[in-house]
């Protein structure tokens, strides 16, 4: 994971081409959501040891935001999906 990422658009590319934002699991609350919901979205993280989903941006490539599903202990990557496809399809 840390060395090479398979971008769904560009293929296997070195990690340095990407920038990483963080946890891709929290969903942005609706405009009418409570301040608690916003607090949870912006600040609170499950941060599990094991399988996570994380936003990676192919900043030096196709400029797409990707959701990388991977293990944060073994660094194995299970899936890389275009974030928009996930967002449109409803987060899995």
């Amino acid at each position, binding site marked *: *994971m*840390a*060395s*090479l990422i398979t971008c769904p658009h560009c293929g296997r590319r*070195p990690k340095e081409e990407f*920038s990483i*934002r963080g946890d891709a699991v929290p969903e*942005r*609350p609706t*405009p*009418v*959501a409570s*301040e608690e*919901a*916003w*607090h949870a*979205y*912006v600040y609170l993280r499950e941060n599990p040891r094991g399988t996570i989903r994380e*936003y990676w*941006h192919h*900043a030096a490539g196709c*400029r*797409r*935001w990707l959701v990388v599903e991977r293990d944060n*202990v*073994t*660094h194995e990557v299970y899936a890389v999906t*275009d*974030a*928009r496809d996930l*967002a*449109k399809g409803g987060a899995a």
Partner: protein
Amino acid sequence: MTSSRIANVGLIDRSRIVKFSFDGRAYKGFEGDTLASALLANDVTLMGRSFKYHRPRGPVTAGPSEPNALVTIGKDARTEPNTRATVAELYSGLVARSQNAWPSLKYDIGSINGLFSPMLGAGFYYKTFMWPAAFWEKLYEPVIRRAAGLGKAVLAADPDRYEKSWAHCDLLVIGSGPSGLMAALTAGRAGLRVILAEQDFRLGGSLLSETAMIGGVSAPDFVAATVAELADMPNVTIMPRTTVFGWYDDMVFGAVEKVQKHVAVPSADKPVERLWRIAARRAILAAGAEERPLVFGGNDRPGIMTADATRTYLNRYGVATGRKVAIFTNGGSGYRTAADLSARGVNIAAIIDSRAASADFAPYGVRVICSGSIVDTKGGHRLSGIMTNRFGYDEMIDCDALAMSGGWSPVVHLMCQRGAKPVWSEEAQAFLAPDVGPLFIAAGSAAGHATVSECLRDGAVKAHAAVEALGRLVGHVNTPEVEGEYDPSFAPLWYVPGARAKAFVDFQNDVHVDDLALATREGFGHVEHAKRYTTSGMATDQGKLGNVNAVALLAGMRGVSPAQVGTTTYRPFYTPVSFGALAGTARAEQSRPIRTSPLHGWAKKNGATFLESGLWYRSAYFVQGEEKNWRESVDREVLNVRQNAGLCDVSTLGKIEIFGGDAAEFLNRVYSNAFLKLPVGKARYGLMLREDGMVFDDGTTSRLFENHYVMTTTTAYAAEVMAHLEFASQTFWPDLDVRFVSTSDQWAQMALAGPKSRTILQKIVEDDLSDASFPFLAAREVQLKGGLTARLFRISFSGELAYELAVPAGYGEAVADAIMEAGGGEGICAYGVEALDVLRIEKGHVTHSELDGRTTADDVGLGKMMSTSKPDFIGKGLSSRYGLTAADRLQMVGLKPVELDKPLKAGAALLREGVEPSMTAGQGFVSSACFSPHIGQWIGLAMLKSGRERIGEKILVWDAVRSTEFLAEVCAPVFVDPDNLNLHV
């Protein structure tokens, strides 16, 4: 040439004499020598001093694990301390010096430490040097520090070049001994793309010192034939002098190639070292096995080395390590060494075998002492005798070298770098490579195999598996027959009892058995505690030689098995790697990319002084005539803009083109203020927040056409804003029809500001620029005279009548020239970002000096830009939290020193007048400051607690780090044209 060199033996080229020096004395060696082999050939055994006790030391290995023979190589800026003489390829003009000895290697005052060694045991420094407290930094630590380290660094700029490269292969083979060669051959014949990496300058690994016959030829001849076949394969890349130092995620290996480390003066056309990132589909670790030293009293004298090293010096370099060599062994290696020495005519003092009996054959006439041990040694700078002991009876045996063999440890380092721990094998009495999955496997002696024939076969078998897994047909590879190989099996012997002198475990750090015992006694028996408490394994060899012995000794002391003790953590780098190789070309001015604006040339020819702004070089100010300092230039530029006009390069601002039917809706959601109804042909200032409600960035967005907007960002945040927009559109609102492209580099953009700017601009623009037809905040395409289509925005950072004109980058300089020419009669000047900063401070416009990531819109007086009617925008959700709306937040105000000559500086703190500085007394800080030629004094913007209520108050500007304090008056943060009359003329 010298008495230790044996005629007609070895793989050195005796027709090529290599001259070198050590500690100022000239010596000769041959091409194919290492520094260590050449010194040994010259009867130089003493090559270094140990770290703590400054004990005299000679090489104990002939390879990369060497803890003792560390020297400083090279001169001046090419000085390289701590170079292992055992792997340093000899070259003509090599200059080497000994280390950690004063006044000389032979007579080293530091060796007095040995006398105090009972007081300098493991961890002694944690128990003392505490009284009195002030003496630590003043006395004790300087003394300890002076003793620190081995070699000296010169810290001069490196004159040589380095580079980096990627390589890709189906199979990476690490090591070119019997298993590595067979693996490469098998995979190569099957058509795989193979990289064969070998740390040595010569391929062959252990075969180079092997005396068995392989396929009917000598081992070195077998190597030569195999390498020749591999070299002819277009799909095989052979990389000698290349050490694979790290295994990283996704089967990426880090390797460093010594390209020109074997020449005195490197050619400027090539790098001296090259870093490789090797992406391999599969890899085979064929790094061999390390022979373990024996842990007995006095085991560190120069002349004592491993049996394997003895054989290597003998067979590969044609060097006898002594005239009369004793052998201390627990297995077959000692006997093979005796046989080889004997065959070359070297006298053997005796073979001391720790086992009661063995099936190994000693050469004719050589005495074998079974159930024997060594309890002490004698000699100063070189071994002169060993005290053996058998059944309690001592016997002193004269010898000038000792070959020792304590068994074998597979070199599994790389396979353990990603979390897996090596696995103890009772059968092999060694830690074996862990199972890390099918992609990376060990072969040969790295996998625990013992004999040459087993290693050859295992290399072929492991490569065979890789070939099949990669879906290729395996070609036919015969494993050649081996004649005359020996059985390297051994009986474990971790500690030789009855030691009458220190029995060293970690040679370089002088960790001996008593240290480990003390650590265990004090509760530091966990292998990691023992390592950290005694420093065993923390020297430059990282315990390659001693760690397994240390683990077994700890196991014995704790009464458990080595498996229960386990190993310390293996981490990169397998062997040390230079900073230079890892940094590559990124150094000095080239350490990061340089960005210059399309108007850089224009600015330069107009006399600009440039300053770094992130990766950009921006024009700071333009010196004219007799101006002697930057202030004179900046003051002139500022006044001229307010009186006449000035032209400033603002191309570095981020520029993002936004398209799509939902662009308006999208902008409305990413800005805190309203954007839905921005008319075509208009620009609007916008504020972007982070989701936590703090200001993220600001800028203008203009609607050029119905579904086409152009956004500007600050220079610093251009990339972040672009990524932010992409994130919002792709993940929050994927259904909105909106697209972006960054065009920051495609446009040259210039600000033309000042009361005469319209007159000047009209001279080069076809369109009518009157206030009626091109009013404040107008933004649209215009035709320049001559036909170029440009974008014109009537926006102002200075507060004056002003425009920003954007033209395709390639036209930038010509257009700027045209404007300067058109403005010549109107008194136009070029101005830089320093003047721009003054102009905006005078006007109270914010930059990231105020928007430091902790400010809200309201803090900087832009609270009205927080839309209350929009249902959603980024940052809305958390913007009303208590802490973000508290009355005592820092708010932006203006500041004017009460005394006109006081220079206000950004970064000064604010205090209430008459209050002592303290933890709670701080009132804020000066965020921006400048000399305002318009006002005629220094002014500033400041973030002040409840600032807007405090206009008129006198406050203390407290600048302790610049040793000034004075009173200033809090004022509204606008110093020029508060009613914005100038904008609308």
